[in-house]
């Protein structure tokens, strides 16, 4: 879900860490009212598989759960946001390192 088109950098396979980040980003999008089905559609992940990810994120304190209209809803915690900040910063560096020095030249025509 978080891999976009890029002719020079084809989408890479999603690792488990990417999936955790995806779930956190989708939960964050709903500002404390993220239902499991909505997160499932947003993250592109079936609900049964998603539940395992959500349970793990809850156990690690990266997500918190509450009830809204008798149904569980999820929200990201400050610790979850910290994970996302670190994850994206690291992804930025990794992408630059994987491109190689030639691609770093400014104004290079693609």
């Amino acid at each position: 879900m978080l891999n976009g088109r890029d002719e020079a950098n084809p989408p890479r396979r999603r690792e488990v860490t990417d999936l955790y980040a995806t779930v956190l980003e989708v939960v964050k999008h709903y500002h404390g009212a993220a239902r499991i089905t909505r997160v499932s559609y947003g993250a592109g992940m079936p609900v049964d598989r998603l539940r395992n990810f959500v349970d793990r994120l809850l156990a690690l304190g990266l997500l918190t759960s509450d009830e809204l209209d008798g149904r569980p809803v999820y929200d990201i915690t400050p610790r979850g946001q910290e994970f996302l900040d670190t994850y994206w910063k690291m992804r930025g560096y990794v992408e630059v390192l994987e491109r190689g020095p030639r691609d770093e030249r400014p104004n290079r025509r693609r």
Partner: protein
Amino acid sequence: MTETRVPRGSTVRLGAVDGDLRADGHVRIEVDGRLAVSGNARFEGDAEIEGDLECRSLDADDGTVRVKGSLRASDVVHARDAAIEVGGEFRAHRADIDRRLRVTGPATADEFEVGGVLDGGNTLTARRVSVGGKLRLVGKLTAEGVEAGGSVDIADVEIDSLEAGGLIRLNGGTVRRSIEVGGRFVADAPLAFGSLEAGGLAELKGDGKGGAIDVGGVFTARGNLTFTSLKVGGMGSIGGSGEGESVEVGGKFDVHGGLRLTRALDVGGFVSIREELRADRLELGGALSARRAVFSSDADVGGRVQTVEGLKAERLVLRRKARASGPLVGGSVELEDKARAEDVYGTSVDLGEKAEARRVFAARVRIRADARVDEVTFTETAEIDPAAHLRSPPRRVEALPVFPL
């Protein structure tokens, strides 16, 4: 109000429906010109409409509704655990879709709220667009606010604000207020923006013109860049020239043209400016190289500075053990203990203990113990510690040579 029912698994032919339409799962509706429903059209499961559909509102539940023509609803299109696919134009007051909305033609609504994927093959016009997962659009996006939990992949934009959790990739256009992206931001063509905040990596492939830029990791502008403030946590580069108020970089920063700032350049790591650097002041923890660097007030160099034509500031300090190659020009110039420079020009020049310079030209000169200088030329005073090492005696002249820069 009357209700027209389409039984499960059936194929029917309809034109105008007075009242509501209710279709069970796996239905196919052939259309005389267009299917016009004066009330609500409700689909329980999969449905195919073989032409245009017009209705007051549409509800879909647990399935995919495929409209081969255009879909126009004066009120809400709501899909609960369902997807909507439209072959032509989409027009509604509001779209609230749990799974996926795919539109081949232009899409217009006051609000699009999609849980999974919004996939547009043409333009999209709305006041607000909110997508839980992925937003893809081939044509121009015109809106006030656009938000996505996962990624945004769009062509030209004309919007107020854009926010995505993971990735934003767009062609170019205008984002009048803010762009916020958790992860990676890429603009393939010139972009104007109010502010840009990216958690990981931001890349402008065309020229950029905007306000505050704040990137957590890596920032690349391949063309020219105009900004107010630029703050990069890790690495930054500008392929053309940069112009703005201030730059703050934690790591490495390269500019292949010139850089002109009305306020400060603050770099913790390494800066390289291929052409001229002009700013109000410099705070340098690491290393700076430029063809020439001119600061209208202070330059504070903690590491190493290298210029071809020189570095000029009203007040210039080389901190302890700092190094400068290329002329230094003040104002007042201070080399702290063990700092090392080549030629130094100033109104006043002060060399700390064990500092080294090649030639010093100043009105007032002070050389402390164990400092080393090849030549000292002054017009007013020269205070030389007896323990300083001068290769030739200080020379008093009527007028100093013209300073560089």
